[in-house]
């Protein structure tokens, strides 16, 4: 059993977000973490590894420093890491990103491809489904639980008011929700091994069956018109309730004044 986990290094949105003059992200200037949904995807893969001895390969596309999350993944228990990095891949939208990752995945064997549902920077949830389309594979997104079942998998797929228990043939793409599990910590031994582990690095030339016209900024169908900071609503009135009654009375008066009650 071979599992590939697609992951992304993302800016920690709790820190400051910075942009280059052209409106694209200045990723180099921000603190970064492994995207939380992807970490849950990795945990789901590692649980299958715990049970069946599957081989877990992590792949990411990004700047050279995205290697950090591959090492973190290996310190958690992943077996291999592949970094796809090349100047010509920069500025990609979800179409160009999924084209790139699919091109890299065509080089390796897999039974199951897991991604996080979405990344906290773009919040699009598009790359996983688009990888499935490029590789012509079945897709189950919004997964809560994954179980192997003979030559297939059984997945609880979350919707707004229900879930479907789905069975798909392998190979298959699954996108995982962050709340589906609690990722394990890195082990001390794992950290040491991960520091020395070899990371495979691929560039444009290593991508299989992809056209230049579908890569990077130039190959992105969507274009940025403008990016701006959110204008926050001004601060309203505030009071400190010395007693609960005082706080309740204050709210009560507002509700009366505004004809809510």
């Amino acid at each position, binding site marked *: 059993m071979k599992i590939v986990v697609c992951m992304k290094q993302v*800016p920690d*949105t709790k820190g400051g*977000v910075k*942009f280059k003059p052209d*409106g694209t992200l200045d990723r180099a200037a921000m603190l970064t973490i492994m995207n939380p949904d992807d970490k849950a995807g990795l945990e789901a893969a590692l649980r299958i590894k715990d049970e069946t001895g599957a081989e877990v390969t992590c792949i990411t596309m990004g700047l050279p420093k995205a290697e950090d999350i591959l090492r973190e993944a290996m310190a958690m228990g992943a077996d291999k890491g592949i970094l796809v990095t090349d100047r010509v891949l920069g500025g990609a*939208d*979800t*179409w160009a990103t*999924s084209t790139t990752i699919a091109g890299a995945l065509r080089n390796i064997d897999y039974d199951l491809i897991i991604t996080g549902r979405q990344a*906290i*920077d773009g*919040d*699009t*949830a*598009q790359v996983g*489904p*688009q990888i*499935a*389309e*490029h590789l012509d594979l*079945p*897709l189950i997104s*919004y997964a809560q639980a994954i179980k192997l079942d003979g030559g297939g998998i*059984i997945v609880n797929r*979350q*919707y707004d*008011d*229900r*879930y*479907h*228990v*789905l*069975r*798909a*043939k392998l190979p298959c793409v699954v996108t995982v929700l962050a*709340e589906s599990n609690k990722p394990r910590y890195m082990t001390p031994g794992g950290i040491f091994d991960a520091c020395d582990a070899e990371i495979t690095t691929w560039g444009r030339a290593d991508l299989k069956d992809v056209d230049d016209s579908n890569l990077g900024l*130039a190959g992105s*169908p969507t*274009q*940025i*018109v*403008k*990016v*701006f*900071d959110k204008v926050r609503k001004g*601060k*309203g*009135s*505030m*009071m*400190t*309730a010395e007693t609960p009654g005082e*706080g*309740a009375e*204050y*709210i*009560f008066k507002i*509700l009366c004044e505004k004809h*809510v*009650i």
Partner: protein
Amino acid sequence: MSLKQCKGVYIYVQQTDNKIDNIAFELLGKATELAADLVTDVTAVLVGFNVKGMADELAAYGADKVIVVDDPVLKEYRTEPYTHALTSVIKEFKPDILLVGATAIGRDLGPRVSARVATGLTADCTVLEIGEFKARGDKEPRQGQLLMTRPAFGGNTIATIACPNHRPQMATVRPGVMQKQEKMAGAKAEIVEFNPGFEANDKYVEIMEIVKSVSDTVDIQTAKILVSGGRGVGSAENFALLEDLAAAIGGTVSCSRAAADSGWKPKDRQVGQTGKTVRPDVYFAIGISGAIQHTAGMEESDIIIAVNKDPDAPIFDIADYGIVGDCLKIVPRLTQAIKWRYLHG
């Protein structure tokens, strides 16, 4: 698809158990505005099994034309046959614009369809308008482009995106943001039945079981008053205090991600970036610190009243009225006062 031959504003009609989801009416509302700007018409794409009877309802909310893809294989939502259905409609009818709800279905269907027809897709849009855009490599701006605006980075920034060289211009749209039109009773749409033929393949998944949520599914997006609780509420039991207040004032209880993740309230009550966008008349933020992921989903509320014991909680930056104090003590006192007023007022 060549740019010139693509015409019309299309929306994907999401239905569950053969009932049209609210998001479809919201999309029709926005599509009607966009179509007016472009002097074109609005087409609703209705996909399912035994769904033809729902076409008139779509007409009543603004659809000029309804394309019906009706097939037994489409009885329940599954990625592959629905992707095939919508993709076939796009190839046959060549829309200029296609809007899909940014729901748990639309965020699965949208990207798969956009990849199959090789066009761009902008996720979770909150503003859509027609305008001009100078694309990369162009000397002059082009008119009549769909400009798609969406929050990114957990709501820290807003980006406007265009898709100048590919059709359709596709967007998923956040539920609860666009306004539906007044219902026009008796409106009729032109109905076009279209079946591209469905052949099962390895991409078809099998539905083994459907488990509906046992919790009473309350739609927090239609509530006029929301009493929303966060980490500061402390426990599932303490949420009873919020339920009491909601009952007294005629509101509905919602929650923050922290409360949903702790299992205090079901996920369908969660407000925020990974939950739902709401804009009630009154939003009570009780024991909610106000992380940007939360405020992104509620800051359009008319009146925001926040109670938190931390005077530096970021929720106070966007609240119209902030009360620093113990929410577990203040809320029951307030409930009591409201009940008294209704009894004796």
